[in-house]
């Protein structure tokens, strides 16, 4: 389907594919032309893509009925689903005109088959991108590149055909087989292909054994989810690789050292062994053993500790093994897939125990390595160790559990449990294959119109608000890969609803196209909700990856062949188009021949946008085409129209959630506009009134003022003494001078330290009689403390202070002051007036006070 708006093209892979397909054809044409008669690189007959279907209108014989009869019958069918005329075609043999270009689907390049390359960073990649990259990176000139491209396109076709018969293939095998087939069937000139052969075999060598080719097939979603999960978890666990190795190595070392120092290695035999043959007769190993045992042998580690270390090593080794290789991790994760909630819960529980055990072991290991494990303290702690002791970061290593089922297969009880699971904090990723889209078995007739349980599951899960939800058609898998990764990464449960288009045997439309069509027709909208992203609906929810998400129905363009010219026409793609392919709705569509077309027929989407419940003159139709591209108008019943309206309502509400045409906003904007208009008007009236009043008042006031000013001026002293003119400056004298004020502040600043100093000096003067030390300046030289350690002591910074002035003589104080290298001991005045030789000492002390 072609889309009119180039901006929208990127949003749907289907349009991409279509572009690719025409590119491919053009490319092939060009190259075939380029090589002229040289058939060496031409596509083999059976591989040649069929002609694209050309849409056209087919002239038919004149109808046997009159126009009135025709109109009457059409209206009857529209209203009741019954027609008296025998239809000339079966809707089963037609396809919506917009999907006609996708008829020879196997020749269309699209995202499938996918390559899963567990060893590379973009682990899931469309085969076509992979091949295109090979061309781009080949470093060949343009001409050679085209040769290579053509060859790879052919290989791609072969690979596609190979993979179509298998859900998964080992890529290397498939590739080698394709290459072999290709060379066998190509009868090309040797020189021409030699360089290509070398190139291709070079590519072959680069492919590793682990890559897989996944075709568009039932259950592909599970394979892809598993691959994405594996890649993600591996990455998450990668840092543990070195860490676990380290821990185990250290722990083993503890055990080894313990053994070495345990005396075992000092037995005569052990000693003799270490000496080897020569010289062994010259030593008495018994006495040697006695000597070394006495001097070296230490006690070996306590049995408990050895036991503990060993068990930790076992656990860590187990995990090390799991994360040590892709295969081991894969094997481990493969067990974490359930097909019922009960199983998923069981897996969760055992997984949780495992994870707790793992982090517990890491913690014990770290303590052990630092020799900090104390049994009386840590035994009870680890006895008690539970999930509560795990950090958020620890939890994030929980390997996601995949709960995978098909919507039709789920049991009623599981349906109820599912909501519990989804609302939980368990990292259970629910992957539902929607196979009942507008196709569910019904309880009673009225539910005939229901789009199906699993088709609305995604939207219901939105109301949990804390659960990640992604609903997407399998065809768009690559488009939403990053969203899938986010969902897998979130530490909570997540819901993925996927529609693969395999719901019914569909001959006319390939499952891939059906799956995309389900999303385009709003039957199964693509949306996602990520509660971990931002803090509002706007941040959580998005339909931006849905095709033309701002409109009710996406619009496409078809090319119609009319004689020799081609005209284009725009068509909407609606739910009606999508449902044409379903057996159970076939009664609602009636194809009519060109000779029976008339002016009351209008396109379905146009019809449902009108007030069709009340005005029922027109008859809605959908344009469809047969295998030859001949187009038919297909009349649609009113019931079908109502289904379409329902789907549109559901879609419009989803749009609102994502902020498109939000009704609250529209309502509010309308209200605001009204309010503002009203306010503006009121203000205008008020302003006018006020203005008028002010004008009146000020004219009056101004008059008074002028009169009084004139009077005052005439009466002032200055006026009287100085005369006129200078009086104007008089009021300025009252304005305070700014400059002096600033100066004052500066003075204050200057004065302050001096004032402070004076204050401190006063303080110092007060305590002059008591001895003291400028402790912060003490260099801890020990001199004073050595002299009298009762009198002098160190504080908590190992700097001296006077602990007890009475614990010694005044002489001690003066001597210490003399000795102190940084002269910070101040002896003060003697406390004991009877101490001998005071006069001398006081004189000496002056120097230091």
């Amino acid at each position, binding site marked *: 389907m072609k889309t009119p708006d180039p901006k929208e093209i990127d949003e749907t892979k289907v349009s991409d594919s279509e572009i690719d397909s025409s590119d491919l054809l053009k490319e092939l044409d060009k190259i075939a032309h380029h090589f002229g008669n040289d058939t060496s690189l031409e596509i083999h007959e059976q591989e040649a893509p069929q002609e694209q279907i050309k849409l056209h209108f087919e002239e038919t014989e004149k109808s046997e009925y009159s126009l009135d009869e025709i109109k009457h019958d059409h209206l009857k069918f529209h209203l009741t689903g019954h027609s008296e005329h025998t239809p000339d075609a079966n809707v089963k043999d037609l396809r919506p005109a917009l999907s006609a270009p996708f008829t020879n689907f196997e020749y269309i390049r699209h995202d499938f088959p996918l390559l899963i390359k567990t060893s590379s960073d973009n682990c899931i990649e469309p085969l076509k991108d992979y091949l295109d990259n090979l061309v781009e990176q080949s470093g060949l000139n343009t001409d050679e590149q085209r040769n290579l491209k053509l060859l790879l396109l052919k290989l791609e076709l072969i690979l596609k055909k190979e993979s179509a018969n298998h859900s998964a293939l080992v890529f290397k095998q498939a590739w080698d087989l394709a290459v072999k087939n290709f060379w066998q069937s190509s009868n090309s000139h040797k020189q021409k292909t030699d360089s290509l052969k070398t190139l291709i075999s070079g590519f072959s060598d680069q492919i590793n054994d682990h890559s897989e080719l996944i075709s568009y097939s039932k259950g592909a979603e599970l394979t892809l989810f598993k691959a994405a999960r594996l890649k993600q978890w591996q990455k998450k666990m990668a*840092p*543990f690789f*070195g*860490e676990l*190795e*380290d821990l185990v*190595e*250290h722990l*083993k*070392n503890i055990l*080894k050292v313990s053994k070495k120092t345990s005396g075992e290695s000092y037995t005569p035999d052990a000693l003799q062994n270490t000496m080897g*043959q*020569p010289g062994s007769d010259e030593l008495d190993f018994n006495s040697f053993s006695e000597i070394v045992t006495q001097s070296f042998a230490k006690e070996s580690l306590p049995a408990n500790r050895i036991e503990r270390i060993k068990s930790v090593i076992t656990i860590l080794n187990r995990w090390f093994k799991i994360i040590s290789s892709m295969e081991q991790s894969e094997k481990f994760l493969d067990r974490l897939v359930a097909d019922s909630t009960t199983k998923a819960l069981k897996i969760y529980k055992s997984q949780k125990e495992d994870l707790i055990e793992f*982090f517990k072991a*890491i*913690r014990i290991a*770290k*303590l052990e390595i630092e020799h*900090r494990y104390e049994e009386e*303290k*840590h035994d009870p*702690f680890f006895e008690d160790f539970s999930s509560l*002791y795990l*950090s*958020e*970061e*620890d939890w994030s*290593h929980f390997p996601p559990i995949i709960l995978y089922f098909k919507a039709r297969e789920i049991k009623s009880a599981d349906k109820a449990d599912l909501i519990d699971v989804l609302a939980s904090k368990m990292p259970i990723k629910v992957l539902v294959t929607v196979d009942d889209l507008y196709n569910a078995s019904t309880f009673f007739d009225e539910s005939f119109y229901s789009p199906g349980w699993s088709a609305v599951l995604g939207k219901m899960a939105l109301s949990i608000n804390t659960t990640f939800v992604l609903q997407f058609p399998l065809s768009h898998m690559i488009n939403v890969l990053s969203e899938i990764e986010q969902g897998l990464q979130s530490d909570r449960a997540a819901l993925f609803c996927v529609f693969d288009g395999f719901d019914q045997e569909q001959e006319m439309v390939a499952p891939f196209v059906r799956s995309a069509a389900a999303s385009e027709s709003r039957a199964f909208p693509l949306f996602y909700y990520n509660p971990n992203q931002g803090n509002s609906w706007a941040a959580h929810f998005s339909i931006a990856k849905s095709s033309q998400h701002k409109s009710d129905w996406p619009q496409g363009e078809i090319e119609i062949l009319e004689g020799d010219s081609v005209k284009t026409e725009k068509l909407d793609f609606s739910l009606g188009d999508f449902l044409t392919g379903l057996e159970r709705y076939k009664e609602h569509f009636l194809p009519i021949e060109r000779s029976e077309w008339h002016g009351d027929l209008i396109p379905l989407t146009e019809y449902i946008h009108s007030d069709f419940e009340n005005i029922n003159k027109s008859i809605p139709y959908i344009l469809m085409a047969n295998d030859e591209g001949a187009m038919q108008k297909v009349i649609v019943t009113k019931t079908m129209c109502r289904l379409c309206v329902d789907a549109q309502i559901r879609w419009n509400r989803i749009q609102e959630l994502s902020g498109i045409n939000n009704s609250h906003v529209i309502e509010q904007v309308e209200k605001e506009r009204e309010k503002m208009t009203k306010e503006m008007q009121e203000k205008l009236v008020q302003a006018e009134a006020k203005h008028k009043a002010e004008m009146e008042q000020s004219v009056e006031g101004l008059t008074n003022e002028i009169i009084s000013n004139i009077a005052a001026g005439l009466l002032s002293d200055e006026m009287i003494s100085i005369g006129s003119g200078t009086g104007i400056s008089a009021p300025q004298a009252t304005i305070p001078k700014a400059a002096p004020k600033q100066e004052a502040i500066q003075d204050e600043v200057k004065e302050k330290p001096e004032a402070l*100093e004076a204050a401190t000096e006063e303080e110092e003067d007060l305590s002059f009689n008591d001895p003291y030390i400028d402790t*912060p*300046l*003490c*260099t*801890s*030289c*020990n*001199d004073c403390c*050595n002299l009298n350690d009762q009198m002098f002591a160190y504080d*908590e*910074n*190992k*700097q001296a202070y006077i602990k007890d002035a009475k614990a010694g003589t005044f002489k001690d104080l003066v001597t210490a002051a003399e*000795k102190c*290298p*940084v002269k910070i001991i101040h002896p003060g005045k003697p406390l004991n007036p009877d101490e001998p030789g005071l006069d001398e000492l006081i004189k000496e002390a002056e120097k230091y006070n």
Partner: protein
Amino acid sequence: MFGVSINNIIDIDQKNYSMEDYQGDTPRWCPGCGDNGILTAAQRICREEQLPPEKTVFVSGIGCSSRFPHYMNTYGFHGLHGRALPIAEGIKIRRPDLHVFVNMGDGDCTSIGTAHWIHAIRYNFNMTVMLHDNGIYGLTKKQASPTSPLGTKSNTTPKGSFLNPLNPTVTTLGVENVSFVAQAVEWIPELLYDIIRQAYHHKGFAFIRIMQRCPHYTPAMFDPLMSTPENLMLLTHKDGMQISDPLKKVYKNIVEHDPSEKLKANYYAEMTDKMPIGILYKNENIPTYDGLRAPERTVTPQMKEEALNQEFDKFGINPRD
């Protein structure tokens, strides 16, 4: 790592270390020796940073100052004359988790150990290096050292030394990869502590030249600096040394110096009329040797032994062959 922080969970295990926890043997330096003050500052930094003694190593060479490790109650290595740095580097490369401090005398570092010193600056190992500069060989009883002021009378220069002294800060600043150079005096404890603290936090080779009094052999050497506070020029900056208000009253010769400015650092280092005190130069962007060459995997002694044995076995000669 990976949110597995054992310390968060088992904090009953956490200890609080006090000064005493870092005090080893009683110092046997002469009375009034400046090494005491440096020791106190080192013990204080350990206490403030709560460095587990078993995770801390003090490495020294030979000299009075090199007795330092004995007086610290941490791991220590009283090495060979001039070889403190290679030993410290060995420790750091094998055990990057340890806090490594180095104490050297002026003879130790700038004379016999010069080659190691120069290369250690270039290697830029993450460690704190203190040069106790008393301008003399103390332990061997008074011989002139490269930093002895011109005219120093000593046993080897009885008529006074005749060469201009080497300036360790200028030399250090001149070596490629220099990342931290500071100068301190041991008799202003507050500044000494602040400089060692910043050196400790610097990621790289943090070199501090500390003017250290030797009252026994060169009692008057620093008199001009001690008696006239103006002779000390305190370099301060928001990224440099911090000075308390009371201290500013005593030491009034204070200038702003941004330690990221290399040319200015050189200018101050070369100054002869005043003694600049503070952080001369600091550059956090120089890669450290231990960072560049950190082993990616654990190699236990056991593994090494096995590897060595395998290697030796290749050359082994079996006598019976």
